[in-house]
């Protein structure tokens, strides 16, 4: 009994902190209350809920050989120290999602986001990662698509593979859009990010020919180069010659990124992708750790209200009310379908013992949620006036300090034009108005926190660009790696109809698939960049819906597996979060399709514009009939995409129910685990 006492105390601390966060009104709440609440909840959940799932639901068996033992080859299948594997898994799941989603969610105040991240990760997100890891670990580390095929049939597997490909396309478009939003008209940021390309190539040459395999060494050299790029970037941006060369309009930047994606994804991996991944991975881990330390040292007060008037909808950052749109906006921090691809990727092939699975599967996701909490804290310590100036579309607040100040003040967040200009100057930007996408907002917050700890206000511009660089760097890596992965997914899919497409000996199918993949995400990126409402407004909800739907698919697979294991009485562990995700995503998808409010519903928006076009009338922000038609076309494409996601998830739901019912009729377990002794160790 006594061993539970410390945990009980921790639970009480968490409850008190949560209480303070939830009920304080009027006076500023310290950010550390949120951090404390999250940390204690996570630790208690890990100690009790993860243990319960591991013991009772999965019946983990530490003596059962994992794929890393049975198929050990020293390469793909390697039994790995669990701390080392934790780092690997966390680095693979942590990306831009948990940083951006919570920043966008802050438009409703810090409270809804905090609560959903904490509850969502404990009951849904971490459960999903953990379950998929478990399922894959018992099946030779097979991928999500193969697992669905094994447990629910060929058709279900193909549908899921197709869904995963479409989600990949949307993710790449959204990530690229965030980069465009962060780098457009920003020569300093653009220069530093552009400098990473030759820098990475030099690193690539170094690891290829000069000192092969010296990852640490080359990363340190790269870091020096990065810091030099940030420092010289200021002079470059100020130079009358170089400044304009690195100043790009959003549309130009869009084409540059599309071209970059096409070229980078066919270059040899050692030249650009691998070395830049070293930089971005280590920078990511370092920046996350520094952010945690910075928040603890600075202990900033939260300036965003707990709840804003946008809870009911009508927010300038994204449209729609708290339910269901908050739950799809905070995509990765609380529950992320994409993690199912990671948990069924390299990690299950490296895990040394089933006993490590809770720490890797459940624990790493808790850490990811903690990153999301920090991003939410970052957005909430900013002056709300600055937050809404940066995240509202130009169509609403104009493009100069006076109009933005007037519009944001009218929203109820008073801010002076001087403060807007001064903030831009502090961080070394021309303007901070309408820099949507989350990354610039987070960068301002990180500059605030880091400069408090190191360097004072004079260093703000440096830290801002450091933060932009860190985000842009791993987004570009993801674009590059994602295009490659998307290419193979597409080749597999096309090969179902045209078998010769799968051949890897011929270059042509590869080029065609790469081209199709880039065209697909390029289309949505172009649409987002030219979207008068700023693109993030339109694309982020589509991304959120797709990501949460993939999570629902992974949890449905988990539920089906539990039924087939004859663990029906514990099926609620995955069935409850599945139900919640289905409710959120299906209603969000339905609203996006059918809502009569043109701000929310794609079809309503298209109808409004096509009626106006039929009357020969131009609706703001379109300036020509051409733009009118483009808006209508984009709306319809988005609507079709959402309809497609709905169809995928409903189809999988059908297969899941069928599988569960069939499993219930059987007396014995029917899951397709690969028996522990089937493949002898090599």
């Amino acid at each position, binding site marked *: 009994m006594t061993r539970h006492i410390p945990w009980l105390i921790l639970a009480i601390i968490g409850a008190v902190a949560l209480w303070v966060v939830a009920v304080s009104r009027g006076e500023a709440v310290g950010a550390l209350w949120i951090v404390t609440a999250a940390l204690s909840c996570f630790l208690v959940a890990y100690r009790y809920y993860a243990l319960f799932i591991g013991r009772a639901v999965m019946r983990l068996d530490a003596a059962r050989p994992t794929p890393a033992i049975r198929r050990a*080859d020293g*390469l793909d299948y390697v039994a790995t*120290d669990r701390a080392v594997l*934790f*780092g690997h898994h966390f680095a693979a799941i942590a990306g831009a999602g948990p940083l951006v989603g919570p920043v966008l969610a802050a438009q409703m105040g810090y409270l809804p986001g905090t609560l959903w991240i904490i509850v969502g990760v404990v009951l849904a997100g971490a459960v999903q990662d953990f379950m998929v890891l478990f399922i894959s670990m018992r099946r030779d580390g097979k991928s999500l698509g193969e697992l669905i095929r094994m447990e629910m049939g060929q058709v279900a597997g193909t549908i899921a593979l197709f869904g995963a490909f479409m989600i990949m396309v949307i993710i790449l478009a959204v990530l690229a859009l965030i980069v465009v939003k962060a780098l457009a008209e920003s020569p300093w940021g653009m220069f530093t990010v552009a400098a990473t390309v030759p820098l990475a190539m030099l690193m690539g040459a170094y690891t290829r020919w000069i000192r092969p395999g010296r990852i640490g060494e080359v990363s340190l050299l790269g870091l020096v180069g990065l810091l030099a790029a940030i420092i010289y970037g200021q002079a470059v941006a100020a130079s009358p010659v170089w400044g304009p060369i690195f100043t790009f309009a959003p549309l130009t930047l869009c084409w540059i990124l599309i071209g970059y994606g096409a070229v980078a994804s066919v270059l040899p991996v050692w030249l650009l992708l*691998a070395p830049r991944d070293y930089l971005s991975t280590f920078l990511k881990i370092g920046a996350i750790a520094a952010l945690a330390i910075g928040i603890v040292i600075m202990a900033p007060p939260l300036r965003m209200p707990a709840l804003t008037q946008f809870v009911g909808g009508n927010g300038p950052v994204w449209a729609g009310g708290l339910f269901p749109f908050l739950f799809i906006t905070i995509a*990765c921090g609380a529950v992320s379908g994409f993690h199912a691809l990671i948990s069924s990727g390299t990690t299950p092939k490296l895990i040394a013992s089933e006993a490590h699975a809770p720490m890797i599967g459940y624990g790493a996701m808790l850490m990811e949620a903690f990153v999301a909490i920090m991003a939410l804290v970052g957005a909430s310590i900013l002056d709300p006036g600055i937050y809404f100036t940066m995240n509202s579309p130009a169509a609403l607040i104009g493009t100069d300090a006076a109009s933005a100040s007037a519009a944001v003040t009218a929203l109820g967040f008073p801010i002076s034009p001087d403060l807007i200009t001064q903030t831009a100057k502090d961080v070394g930007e021309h303007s901070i108005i309408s820099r949507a996408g989350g990354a610039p907002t987070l960068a301002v917050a990180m500059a605030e926190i880091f400069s408090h700890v190191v360097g004072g206000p004079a260093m703000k511009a440096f830290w801002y660009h450091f933060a932009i660089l860190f985000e842009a760097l791993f987004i570009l*890596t993801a674009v590059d*790696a994602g295009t490659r992965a998307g290419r193979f997914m597409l080749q597999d899919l096309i090969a179902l109809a045209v078998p010769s497409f799968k051949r890897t000996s011929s270059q042509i199918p590869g080029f065609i698939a790469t081209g199709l993949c880039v065209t697909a995400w390029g289309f949505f990126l172009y649409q987002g960049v030219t979207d008068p409402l700023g693109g993030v407004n339109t694309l982020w909800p589509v991304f959120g819906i797709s990501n949460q739907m993939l999570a629902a698919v992974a949890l449905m697979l988990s539920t089906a597996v539990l039924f087939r294991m004859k663990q029906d009485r514990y099926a609620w562990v995955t069935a409850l979060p599945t139900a919640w995700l289905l409710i959120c995503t299906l209603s969000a998808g339905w609203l996006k399709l059918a809502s009569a409010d043109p701000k929310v519903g794609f079809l309503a928006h298209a109808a409004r514009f096509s009626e106006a076009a039929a009357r020969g009338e131009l609706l703001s922000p379109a300036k020509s009939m051409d733009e009118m038609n483009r808006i209508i076309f984009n709306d319809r494409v988005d609507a079709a995409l959402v309809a497609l996601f709905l169809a995928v998830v409903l189809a999988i739901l059908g297969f899941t129910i069928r599988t569960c019912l069939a499993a219930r009729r059987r007396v014995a377990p029917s899951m397709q685990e690969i028996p522990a002794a089937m493949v002898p160790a090599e």
Partner: protein
Amino acid sequence: MSALLATLRQAARLMVGMPDYDAYLRHMGEHHPGQPVMDRVAFFRDRQEARYGGRNGGRCC
């Protein structure tokens, strides 16, 4: 202390998809004695291609 550093080093390398070379040698020695093994450089290139070639899925969002 040096054990901690070694773990950190291994963790950092595995974060970018590079497994332990010594573990590979140990595996080959135990299970496939006498068979040719990749040297450090070949091992590095092989693993780099395996991680970034695209077959292992993308990175997370």
